[in-house]
């Protein structure tokens, strides 16, 4: 990745067209936007080709241009912004409560032997009941409401999070705990200063997994509970046979998840576990 930029020989070489192209490519790919969007270019091109050549019937498969038109149309009408904010509000509630419940529960189960003995069978049992399997009864209890959707998202997030925290705490090297103890830290300080940061790589992984599940649960819940939201939009569009809206919904999901990762999760990890050299630093996405 490191470009040999100096040396007379090198400078002479840049004059040949191939060298010049390589330098240009390197300069372009260094910017964030290109790195982020670059991998999508061939996919969009393939997609566009498939649509242009009518590999599939046009009624089932629309090209990027149709989706873009649909996007602008729905933005102008205010439908998409409205649905988006509905989905994001539900997600925010779900994630908020999910983390608020999952993290303390995870650390409690990890730290206390009796809490573990008490809850482990329950955890395994309830984890087995898929999130969507709760929807029928949740709708009976809470109706087609924000509470119902939040419940399902929280439910999906909590279990992977608890399991991740437990395995994270188990991974903290015994020597670090010992070192802290013989530096004079009491049990509480050991927890705050050693166990929590030591478990962070696994916890960050758990949050990522949990959010991914929660995100999917949201869409599924919207499809079934269906009054508004991106998931509802897609399913409703299918009903009336508007394929471009379905495509648009799928793209919106991908973009939103990417944004959440790039804006929240990745910077957090960069500032903590990567800064501390606790995980291999991945160069992608910078």
């Amino acid at each position, binding site marked *: 990745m490191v470009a040999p930029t100096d040396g007379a020989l090198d400078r002479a070489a840049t004059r040949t067209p191939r060298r010049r192209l390589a330098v240009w490519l390197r300069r372009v790919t260094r910017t964030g936007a290109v790195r982020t969007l670059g991998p999508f270019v061939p996919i969009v091109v393939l997609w566009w080709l498939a649509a242009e050549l009518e590999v599939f019937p046009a009624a089932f498969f629309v090209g990027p241009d149709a989706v873009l038109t649909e996007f602008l149309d729905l933005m102008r009408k205010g439908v998409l912004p409205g649905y988006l904010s509905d989905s994001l509000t539900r997600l925010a509630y779900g994630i908020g409560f999910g983390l608020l419940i999952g993290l303390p529960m995870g650390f409690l189960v990890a730290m206390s032997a009796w809490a573990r003995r008490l809850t482990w069978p329950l955890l395994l049992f309830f984890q087995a009941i898929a999130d969507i399997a709760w929807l029928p009864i949740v709708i009976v209890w809470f109706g087609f409401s924000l509470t119902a959707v939040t419940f399902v998202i929280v439910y999906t997030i909590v279990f992977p999070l608890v399991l991740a925290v437990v395995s994270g705490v188990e991974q903290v090297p015994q020597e670090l705990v*010992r*070192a802290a*103890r013989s530096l004079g830290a009491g049990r509480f300080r050991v927890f705050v200063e050693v166990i929590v940061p030591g478990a962070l790589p696994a916890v960050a992984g758990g949050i990522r997994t949990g959010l991914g599940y929660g995100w999917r649960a949201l869409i599924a819940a919207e499809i079934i509970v269906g009054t508004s939201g991106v998931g509802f939009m897609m399913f409703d569009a299918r009903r009336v046979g508007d394929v471009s809206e379905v495509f648009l919904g799928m793209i919106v999901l991908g973009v939103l998840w990417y944004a959440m990762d790039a804006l929240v999760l990745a910077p957090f990890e960069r500032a903590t576990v990567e800064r501390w050299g606790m995980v291999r630093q991945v160069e992608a996405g910078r």
Partner: protein
Amino acid sequence: MTALEISGLAKEYVDSYSGDRVTAIGEVTFTVEEGEFVSILGPSGCGKTTVLNIIAGFVEQTAGTVKVGGRVVDGPGPDRGVVFQNHALFPWKTAAFGLRMKGIPAARRREIALEHLELVGLAGFENRYPHELSGGMRQRLGVARVLANEPAVMLMDEPFASIDAQTRRKLQEDLTRVFELRRPTVFFVTHDIDEAVFLSDRVVVLSRRPSRVREIVTVDLPRPRDWQGTTALPEFREIANHITALLSEGGDREGPELTAA
């Protein structure tokens, strides 16, 4: 004054899976005076680490007592600072953690931390995370961390074992320099005879498992010491050869007659 007093220490490990019992330490008794550097040597698996872990309070003994400054200790505490073989630095910390645990105010803490980093030759590295340091530097930092905390006894378990020979030599010399300057009380585990003789005032030689103290060898070499000069002394070789003989003799014949001290 006696800083560390070990008497009748014994340890039997029970395998929680098979129920097998292993007597790691038979009966170990020795003392470390204040400001003294004492090493413990013995065949691999004879229980050196176990002795250190019991003193540190990480492992509970089956019998015997550990006294620090005349008081029986139980569990880990800041009076016994430990330098670990693989340094056990906190990946997420840059500054003096132990000092904060002691409740020393931040400004003073920084002062103490910088002073000790300088002492071990790490001036200018105060804002680095451990993964940004070399193996030798990490070990220096491990020493600084403990020194800064001013424990009654400093416990070191083969701190230089996983470091290349050249760096190890330098670390040994620097440790001697710091010791001669500060005179902390040190209990040092090693399996390197030259290292033990070079660093120590006395060397505790253990027999095979179940280990007993075979002999406590006094190292009466002048200080300050440096590697070239000290190891060239005829007395140095004499002591080292004596310990080598003790260790190889203890090999197959073991029994109560080996107990000394």
